[in-house]
């Protein structure tokens, strides 16, 4: 029996001596080969890779990820292409795919999750599937051995945090800001209190994302949480690069910089 996705994720958190670095790659952006390359480059620096499957109507995403997803769809990217990228990464850090619920149910949750598991996917994040709608998918994910990663937000009250915590697997993705992806988080007392509150109610590791842009912010988050997701900023750097080679270099420099910043002092 292969190790389940949840167990693999748990092991990564347990064995790490630093807050985990979870960079995001949009599958198919700017094209399929480039996104595979970016994921492979980031795999050298990351503890977990979050791999986005583009969706036509991404409600939780701000302009940067929306545009990247639309470019991926315009280039003909299909969910299977992105799952194939996950398959190519199976010897690296665990891969968690992020997509919207309609992508999952279009071919049936069991079939989709079964394919994801075959490709070595450890977990799935579905930002428009709140905990109270998730029973069926959680069961299918459990059978496939893929962890269903729940989200919590600043507007999630204590009782609901506990409900999310009670069924959580792998880790919980804590949204740092009331808003969509790509905004700007500020490390303030409110965010500190939020992370504290999440950790009190949620027994699995808590990873914070939405609006984290710099290695310094990653370190600040890392002092409170078990890991940090960086998404829009990486896409912005890819978009700003003049050519593919420069994009690869930008991804590598940024990934190395964040990973280095999150490592414990060894001196």
């Amino acid at each position: 029996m292969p190790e389940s996705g949840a167990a693999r994720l748990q092991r990564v958190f347990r064995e790490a001596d630093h807050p985990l670095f979870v960079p995001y790659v949009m599958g198919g952006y700017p094209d399929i080969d480039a996104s595979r390359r970016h994921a492979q480059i980031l795999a050298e620096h990351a503890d977990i890779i979050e791999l986005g499957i583009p969706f036509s109507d991404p409600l939780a995403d701000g302009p940067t990820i929306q545009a990247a997803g639309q470019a991926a769809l315009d280039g003909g990217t299909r969910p299977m292409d992105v799952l194939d990228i996950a398959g190519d990464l199976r010897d690296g850090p665990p891969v968690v795919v992020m997509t919207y619920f309609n992508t999952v149910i279009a071919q049936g949750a069991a079939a989709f999750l079964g394919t994801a598991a075959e490709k070595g996917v450890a977990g799935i994040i579905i930002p428009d599937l709140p905990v109270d709608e998730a029973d069926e998918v959680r069961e299918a994910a459990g059978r496939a051995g893929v962890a269903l990663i729940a989200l919590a937000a600043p507007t999630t009250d204590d009782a609901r945090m506990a409900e999310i915590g009670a069924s959580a697997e792998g880790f919980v993705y804590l949204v740092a800001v009331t808003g969509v992806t790509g905004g700007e988080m500020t490390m303030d007392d409110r965010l500190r209190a939020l992370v504290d509150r999440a950790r009190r109610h949620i027994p699995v590791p808590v990873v914070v994302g939405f609006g984290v842009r710099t290695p310094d912010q990653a370190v600040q988050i890392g002092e409170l949480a078990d890991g940090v997701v960086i998404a829009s900023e990486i896409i912005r750097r890819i978009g700003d690069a003049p050519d593919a080679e420069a994009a690869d270099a930008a991804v590598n420099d940024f990934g190395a910089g964040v990973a280095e910043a999150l490592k414990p002092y060894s001196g």
Partner: protein
Amino acid sequence: MSVNMRFGPYGGRYVPETVIGALDELTEAYERYRDDPDFLSELGVLLSHYVGRPTPLYRAQRLERAWGIDDGLWFKREDLCHTGAHKINNALGQVLLARRMGKQRIIAETGAGQHGVATATAAALVGLGCRVYMGRTDMQRQRLNVIRMRMLGAEVHPVDSGSGTLKDATSEAIRDWVTNVDTTHYIIGSAVGPAPYPEIVADLQSIIGIESRAQMLDETGRLPGTVIACVGGGSNAIGIFRGFLDDADVALVGVEAGGEGPAGRHGASLALGRPGVLHGSYSYLLQDPDGQVAEAHSVSAGLDYPGVGPEHSHLHDIGRVSYVNATDEAALSAFLECSRMEGLIPALETSHALAHVRDAAASLRGGGPVLVCLSGRGDKDVDQAGAALGIDASA
């Protein structure tokens, strides 16, 4: 009374976690106020003195003769509502709710601009700030409504993503709500979206069906044989259908946008889509095999939407309502016939329902009176319909 969250398997709340608290708050507020005497009396006074309810029931005798509807063709005149369509029924109810919930800011999406105008109007009436999201394509084809919204003090925010139509405007409104949920109430314009919206909108629009049922009995001494309404998201349709759902002998027909016809682009979610999730609810949806939402097409911006309200999906599955469609071309010709024979310029959305009456007249004949929800007037459409029909203002 608790609010319906599902209609059969359809509906639900497939939205980012961030807005779940606000949906809970809205559900609680609606459960509390829907039967609250103060709320009902404030809404009731506005509906009668400001909107002009009850709207009349009118017998369209010239069309009836031209089309051969022997048992009578009746229009429920929602086009006479203040702002020109049924949308105000919902917008006013939700604005009053928003004020009771202490929200300072209103946002809305709009396709044809009728819901945007209704929301801008209601927000102006109670003094709340208002921003309306509208696709850029729709801003061009419904230019007059853009100007009206701005005159009413609302900020109209163009949406460029996707095809620049209602779907994209709705996504952008939801993103605004996710970001500003503490201060903002999102007034969704149709019987779509996450629960409790489909139920709230249907409930606020059910006045159309309640009034017209009583009016039909008054005027004709009997119930209609068939009730017909156009369906985009489906708010005017569900509003009038709710008056007749329990009358098993009354046939209910929803008319979706057939667009360019079955081989071309269209907006016929129920006829040609399959269930999926868009904008927070599980319902019939135009989509590709991967679940990417397809771009709808209709000459009418209000029906140009790839989804449909979850209650319609349920009524479709159980066979209580038949859903058919009418093409752009059929709707435009019905638009002109109604204008020329009744002196009523109907909205292009509404014209789809009229086209069905004309084109299905043979099967409607002898089946009892036909009641059409004349959901809106076509002032907003004169630029676009005029261009399509070759009618302009040249000297």
